[in-house]
């Protein structure tokens, strides 16, 4: 295939209604081909299954940590919800005073408590 034919083929690959598979095939036959080295597969497998064992373990560890995080976070959220419900039931509201345990206490009673009179 000469230079101008190659150029035409390249340009036509961007036409809307064209058989791109045919173009890719023709270009490959014309010498446009890409390959990794012959040892590519072995290198990938070595990285994954020998040196990669530690990486694999690290990934596993991160995965476990993620699962553990969700469990801990969910437990925390559940505890907060239970706390809010119990405060609401005991104090009748969710104001700041209720959180401090002062929801049902009048100012006078606090003075009495503090002064002892």
């Amino acid at each position, binding site marked *: *295939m000469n230079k101008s034919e190659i150029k035409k083929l390249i340009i036509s690959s*961007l036409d*809307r209604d064209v058989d791109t598979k045919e173009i890719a095939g023709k270009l*490959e036959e014309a*010498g446009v081909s890409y390959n990794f080295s012959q040892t590519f597969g072995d290198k990938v497998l070595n990285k994954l299954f020998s040196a990669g064992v530690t990486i694999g373990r690290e990934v596993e560890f991160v995965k476990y940590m993620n699962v553990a995080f969700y469990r801990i976070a969910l437990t925390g959220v559940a505890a907060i919800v239970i706390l809010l419900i119990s405060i609401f039931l005991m104090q009748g509201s969710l104001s700041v005073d209720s959180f401090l345990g002062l929801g049902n206490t009048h100012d006078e009673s606090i003075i009495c408590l503090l002064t002892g009179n």
Partner: protein
Amino acid sequence: MIDYSYDANKEKELVEASLNGDKSAFGEIVNRYQKMVARTVKGMLGDSVFSEDIGQEVFIKLFYSLSDFRGEAKLSTYIQKIAVNLTLNEIKRRKRFFSMFSQKANNEMYEFEIAEQDTEERREASEIVNKALMAMDTKFRVILTMRMLQGYSTKETAEILDMPVGTVLSRLSRAQEQLRSILLKL
């Protein structure tokens, strides 16, 4: 010729075996798709040792994300997405590096080798394609790679690049304009 044969059952078996730690099954996946990954990575990055590193990274990332593969799309599409994303990241990284430390022009960031045993005609074809690819903007280069080297349709290209078909279509015509002016100079 590019092999487009696809056996969903065999693919599923290979994925399941790989998930169970079967080295030879994953080796088969690597053998099946390494040429496809090479076309994407080398097409977009040029032919250098770094391209091979990115290629390896593609399969390592695939291995650790195989459990996320639900089999709704073809495995080749899934691998292609990983390859495109990692290659685009590498292009961004190179651009940042070259803009900071070098005055090299955009197309000088890439290099490509041509097989010595090829005939003059085949070498010329390869050279034209590589030069045209490297001179294009990244967003057009990725579309040209998908169509010209991989033979994907507009719909397949849109799926791999996670963009609407309309966007791919509009980029096709703009890419063609740019390609024409590049090829005039070659």
